[in-house]
C-alpha cells in the first residue's frame, strides 16, 4: 500500500498493486470506518481504489490486477462502492464477484457497444431495467423523469408512496453520460483540461482546479504563488455564486420566491464580476495545468472589492429574512434528515456531510495551497435536515467572502504560470480539492507521449445521490423538491 502525505509529497505517486487479500482487507477496514472510499474506477485490466485514511489524513491508492476480468466486489463489504462498481462493469467489462447488485448503471443499452473503455464488445439487445421490488398494501408508484418539470438536468426517479408518504425512492441515472473518460484518453493536457471544465457546469473552476493539480502532480511541477491565490479566488467566487443560487432555489421550492429573486440578484452580481475580471461568467478555462490563463490588475481588484462590500451588506439582510420567516422554516426544519452515521459511511462531502456532523473539507484536510496561509472556519452542524444544509451554505458564504478579502489583500506579485516541461513524460498524479458541492477527486495517468492515457474524475455526487434515497424516506412527496434542491447533486458530474 502506498501512502501519500499531501502536505509534503510532490513526487509521482506510484499506484501500488496489491494482492487480493490486501484488497479485501482494505475493503473490510473501510466497512469498519477506518477509511473513507474516495473513489473506485477501472483502468486497462486493473481496478483502482482511492481511500482516505481518517487517522493519518492521507490518501492511499491501491490497484488490483484483474487478469481474468473479475475482481472481488467492494460493495459486498462497503455499499457506497456499489454504483461505481456497476459502472466499472459497464465501461470496462470487469465484473465484480459476489456483488450485491448485478444490474447495469450507466449503460442503458443504447451505445451500440458494451465495455467501451475495455474490450469494446458488440452490443446485445438491451434488457428492460428492473427496479427493486416494493411490496405492501395500498402502495402506488410515481415515475418521474428523465425530462423533469423545471429547468434541470435529466434523471429518473421512481417513487413508491403510501398515500402522501414516500416509502421508497429509487434513482436511475446515466442519461447524460457523454463518455468523457474515453474522450480524455489520448487528449493532450490542454484539451483534457477543457473537457474537465465541462464535466459539471456549476463546478467548472473546481473540476479544472482538480485536473490541473493532478496534472501538476503527475509532471512534478508547482504553480506559482500568485496562481494559487487567483485559483482560490475563483474557487471561492464559484462557491458563493452556487450557494446563492441554491439558497434561493431551496426557498423557492418552499414557495418563498422572494428569496429566489434576491439571491438571483446576488448570484448575477458575482457572475458579472467574474466575467469582468476573468473573461467568463463561469470562469471556465481560466485554470490550466501549470497555473492560470488570466491575470487581474488594479481595476479588477477594485471591482471585486466593490462586489464584496455590496454582498456583505445585502446577504446579511437575506439571512435575517430566512431566519425570521416561520412559514419558510416550517418547511425546512425537520425535513429530509440525513443521519450522521450514513453521512460518515458514504463519506458525504460538502454541505451534505457537514450538515450531518461530518467534519471534512479538502481545503482544510488536504491543505493545498494557498489555504494553509488563510484564516477560515469549516462550519459543521449535527441536525442534518434541509434547514441545516441551508445554514451550512449561509455560513460558508460568509467564510468565502472573508477568504476573498484575504486573497485580494495578500495577492503576491509574480508569474501566473509554471511551464509544463516540453519533453513529454509519463507519470501518474492525483488531486483532491473542495468544490462548492464537496470534494472532487481526480486521478490521472500520462502516457509516454505526455498525453492523457487515462483520467478518472469523481464528482462528489457519487456518494451523495444514494443518500437522497435514504433522506426522502418517510417524508411527503411534496417535500421531495425541497430535499432534492438542498442536496443539489450533479447529474452530469455523476454520469460523466
Amino acid at each position: 500500500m502506498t501512502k501519500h502525505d499531501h502536505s509534503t509529497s510532490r513526487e509521482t505517486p506510484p499506484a501500488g498493486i496489491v494482492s487480493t487479500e490486501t484488497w479485501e482487507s482494505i475493503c473490510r477496514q473501510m466497512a469498519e470506518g477506518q477509511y473513507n472510499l474516495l473513489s473506485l474506477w477501472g483502468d486497462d485490466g486493473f481496478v483502482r481504489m482511492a481511500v482516505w485514511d481518517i487517522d493519518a489524513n492521507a490518501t492511499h491508492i491501491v490497484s488490483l490486477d484483474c487478469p481474468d476480468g473479475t475482481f472481488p466486489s467492494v460493495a459486498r463489504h462497503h455499499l457506497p462502492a456499489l454504483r461505481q462498481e456497476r459502472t466499472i462493469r459497464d465501461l470496462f467489462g470487469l465484473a465484480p464477484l459476489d456483488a450485491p447488485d448485478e444490474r447495469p448503471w450507466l449503460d442503458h443499452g443504447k451505445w451500440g457497444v458494451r465495455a467501451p473503455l475495455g474490450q469494446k464488445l458488440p452490443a446485445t439487445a438491451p434488457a428492460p431495467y428492473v427496479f427493486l421490488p416494493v411490496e405492501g398494501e395500498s402502495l402506488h408508484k410515481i415515475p418521474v423523469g428523465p425530462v423533469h418539470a423545471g429547468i434541470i438536468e435529466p434523471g429518473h426517479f421512481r417513487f413508491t408512496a403510501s398515500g402522501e408518504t414516500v416509502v421508497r425512492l429509487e434513482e436511475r441515472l446515466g442519461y447524460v453520460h457523454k463518455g468523457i473518460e474515453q474522450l480524455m484518453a489520448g487528449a493532450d493536457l490542454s484539451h483534457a483540461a477543457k473537457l474537465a471544465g465541462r464535466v459539471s457546469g456549476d463546478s467548472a473552476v473546481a473540476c479544472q482546479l482538480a485536473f490541473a493539480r493532478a496534472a501538476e502532480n503527475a509532471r512534478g511541477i508547482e504553480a506559482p504563488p500568485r496562481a494559487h491565490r487567483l485559483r482560490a479566488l475563483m474557487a471561492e467566487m464559484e462557491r458563493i455564486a452556487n450557494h446563492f443560487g441554491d439558497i434561493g432555489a431551496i426557498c423557492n421550492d418552499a414557495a418563498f420566491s422572494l428569496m429566489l429573486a434576491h439571491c438571483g440578484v446576488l448570484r448575477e452580481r458575482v457572475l458579472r464580476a467574474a466575467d469582468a475580471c476573468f473573461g467568463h461568467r463561469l470562469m471556465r478555462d481560466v485554470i490550466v495545468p501549470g497555473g492560470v490563463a488570466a491575470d487581474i490588475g488594479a481595476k479588477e481588484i477594485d471591482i471585486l472589492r466593490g462586489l464584496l462590500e455590496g454582498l456583505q451588506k445585502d446577504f446579511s439582510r437575506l439571512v435575517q429574512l430566512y431566519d425570521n420567516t416561520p412559514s419558510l422554516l416550517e418547511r425546512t426544519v425537520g425535513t429530509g434528515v440525513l443521519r450522521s452515521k450514513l453521512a460518515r459511511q458514504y463519506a458525504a462531502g460538502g454541505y451534505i456531510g457537514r450538515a450531518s456532523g461530518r467534519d471534512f473539507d479538502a481545503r482544510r484536510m488536504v491543505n493545498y495551497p494557498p489555504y494553509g496561509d488563510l484564516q477560515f472556519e469549516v462550519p459543521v452542524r449535527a441536525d442534518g435536515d434541509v434547514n441545516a444544509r441551508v445554514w451550512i451554505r449561509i455560513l460558508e458564504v460568509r467564510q468565502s467572502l472573508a477568504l476573498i478579502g484575504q486573497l485580494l489583500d495578500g495577492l503576491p506579485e509574480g508569474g501566473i504560470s509554471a511551464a509544463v516541461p516540453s519533453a513529454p513524460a509519463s507519470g501518474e498524479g492525483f488531486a483532491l480539492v473542495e468544490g462548492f458541492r464537496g470534494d472532487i477527486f481526480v486521478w490521472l495517468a500520462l502516457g509516454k507521449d505526455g498525453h492523457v492515457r487515462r483520467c478518472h474524475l469523481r464528482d462528489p455526487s457519487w456518494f451523495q445521490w444514494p443518500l437522497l434515497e435514504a433522506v426522502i424516506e418517510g417524508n411527503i412527496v411534496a417535500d421531495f423538491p425541497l430535499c432534492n434542491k438542498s442536496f443539489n447533486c450533479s447529474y452530469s458530474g455523476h454520469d460523466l
Partner: protein
Amino acid sequence: MKKLLLQGILQRPLTEKAPAADETALADLAETVNRAAKKRLGRSLAIRQVDAGSCNGCELEIHALGNAFYDLERFGLHFVASPRHADILLVTGPVTKNMQEALKRTYAAAPDPKWVIALGDCACTGGLFAGSYAVAGGIAETVPVDLHIRGCPPHPEKILQGLLALLERQQSL
C-alpha cells in the same frame, strides 16, 4: 421582510433595457416562422427546456434569464412544465444516446406549430463531445432545429437576443 418589499417598490428596478434582436438569428428564422403561427400564438410564447445531455452550464444561464436583470417574462416568454404546453423547445447539450429517445418523445409531445432552439455549442454541433460512443451529436441530428444560439454557455443577453428575434420575426408577419 416588509423593508425588503418596500425597497422593491421604491427603488428603481434592476431590470435592464432589452437588447436588440440578433441579426443572424433573424436570418436563421426567416424560413420557419409563418403567418399561421402568429395568428395562433399572439405575442406570448411558452418555452419547454430540455437538457439532452448538457454539462448544466447552459441551464445556469437559462436560469439567469429569470433574474431581475434580464426578467424574461416581461417579453411574454415563460417556461412551462410540460412539452404539451410548449411553443418552443429550448434544447441544450449534445444529445446523449441515453437521452435521444426522451428528446424525440418530448418533441412529439409538443403541439404544432412549434420551434426548436438549439442552445449552446454542444447543442449546435456536439461540441467537445462530438464523436463519443455515448453521444449522438448536435440537436439537429435528432429533431429539426429552427434556431441556433452558440456559446459555451451563451451569455444570457445572447439567449435573450435569440428569443427576441423569434418574437420579432413572428410579429412582423
